[in-house]
């Protein structure tokens, strides 16, 4: 069955950039697109273990009457036929249930708060919860539309990083774009990364497929981020550790998304990799 991406559309200039980013993602990876044009300021997503209520800000309801035609024309110009999602079930009359059986979802860095807050270094709490509980990776788009021509996987050796790497390899195969890998040995010996790769059975694939391997050590991770190509889609495992560990050591994902203006594909802890 075709893979599907869910996009919550807002009919504003920022929403247009986000949509273009989604369209590019779908076109490159041959994914079909489902657009949800919100009719109310909130919706509910029921995941396997969590019910996430997303409260949209009022900018999502701007110019609703032209939203569908605007989105369709943007997609059609780029040769994509989007499907539009109409909610079937309602938890309350103004509270539609949005299905969660998608393969990807596109979010701005913040989905619920005002546009003014959107920028680097801020992920909205709802997007966090979506990433934490979803079975699909979440695409965080850059503020302005930019095509990416390669993929960079951030690999730290954890369970989640293995999954992110698998997705990266999979996406690179489908898109035909080269894959780079960025590792930062932080508090581990140099061989740790290789051990982890070996244990996950990904070593051969990495050797065959990865174009550049940025092995970094020393200093902070921020010192090395300039190495990452400017036109790369970042693939990062997110929220792999417990709350306490994140609290003590900080999350790598947070650092990356704070510093990198690129589009980021976040692979959450519940993501199921069903690719080849």
């Amino acid at each position, binding site marked *: 069955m075709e893979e599907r991406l869910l996009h919550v559309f807002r009919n504003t200039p920022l929403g247009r950039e986000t949509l273009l980013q989604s369209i590019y993602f779908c076109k490159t990876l041959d994914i079909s697109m489902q657009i949800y044009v919100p009719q109310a300021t909130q919706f509910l997503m029921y995941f*396997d273990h969590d019910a996430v209520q997303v409260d949209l800000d009022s900018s999502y309801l701007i110019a609703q009457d032209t939203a569908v035609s605007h989105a369709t024309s943007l997609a059609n110009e780029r040769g994509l036929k989007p499907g539009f999602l109409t909610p079937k079930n309602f938890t309350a009359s103004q509270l539609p249930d949005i299905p969660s059986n998608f393969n990807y979802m596109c979010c701005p860095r913040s989905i619920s708060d005002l546009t003014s807050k959107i920028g680097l270094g801020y992920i909205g709490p709802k997007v966090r919860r979506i990433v934490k509980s979803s079975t699909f990776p979440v695409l965080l788009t850059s503020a302005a539309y930019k095509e990416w021509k390669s993929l960079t996987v951030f690999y730290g050796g954890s*369970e989640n990083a*293995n*999954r992110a790497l698998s997705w990266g390899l999979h996406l690179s195969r489908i898109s035909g774009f080269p894959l780079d890998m960025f590792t930062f040995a932080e508090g581990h010996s140099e061989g740790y990364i290789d051990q982890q790769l070996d244990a996950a059975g990904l070593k051969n694939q990495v050797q065959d497929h990865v174009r550049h391997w940025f092995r970094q050590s020393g200093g902070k991770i921020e010192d090395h981020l300039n190495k990452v190509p400017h036109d790369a889609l970042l693939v990062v495992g997110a929220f792999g550790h417990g709350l306490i560990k994140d609290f003590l050591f900080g999350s790598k994902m947070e650092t990356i998304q704070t510093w990198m203006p690129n589009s980021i594909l976040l692979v959450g802890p519940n993501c*199921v990799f069903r690719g080849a």
Partner: protein
Amino acid sequence: MALTINEVASRLNLPVETIHRWVRQGKIPMRRTSGTYTIRSEMLERWANEHKLEIQNQSDDGLSAQAKIPEFDSIYEAMKRGGVFYDLCAGDRDAALKAAVAHIPNLSQDERERVCEKLLERELLASTGIGHGIALPHPRSQPDIDLAMPQITTCFLSNAVPFDAVDGKPVRVMMVLLSHSTKQHLTMLSKLSFYLRDPDFRAHLLSQPSISEILSRIAAMESEGQPAGKSE
């Protein structure tokens, strides 16, 4: 032994998505260990018994007998297996069939009797003489014989035998078709009768060629292309 979701799905003969959902709903006791869900096979068996679900062991017993039947290879191979015999003497149709059955290779004595019975039974139904002096005797239903692959036994009669053929001509050549399964049998019969539509080939057969001549002719016809590829 720990089984993954995919293995459980194939054992229960259910789609993977269903098992995923059952895990989520807590209907099947699978445990999450290092990112993947697993269940021990004893547990799965116990669980399946409790719920009266069929379990297939990973060996392919489940892939019923049908899968074991090999594809029909070719007329050439079948004729090679069945052999070619010359100068059978017989006064009438039944005697000719009996004589032919006596020559068929790869059969036990019991099987020979059964095959003969079946062939005669089939002739009573309608003659297998297809005209031009050729007959294709075959049993109506597959007799219980132990043949791995189908075979065609070609018998040349020393004198023409009346066979109630469609065109009334007596028969000089009999090609006895035997096989274990109906599917192979039908494929073989349809291919052979297709080749026999060719008058040149019929003439060639009636001229009592040597074994090697027949086989090389068949091989040539089969290599020309699949008979089904041509249209009449």
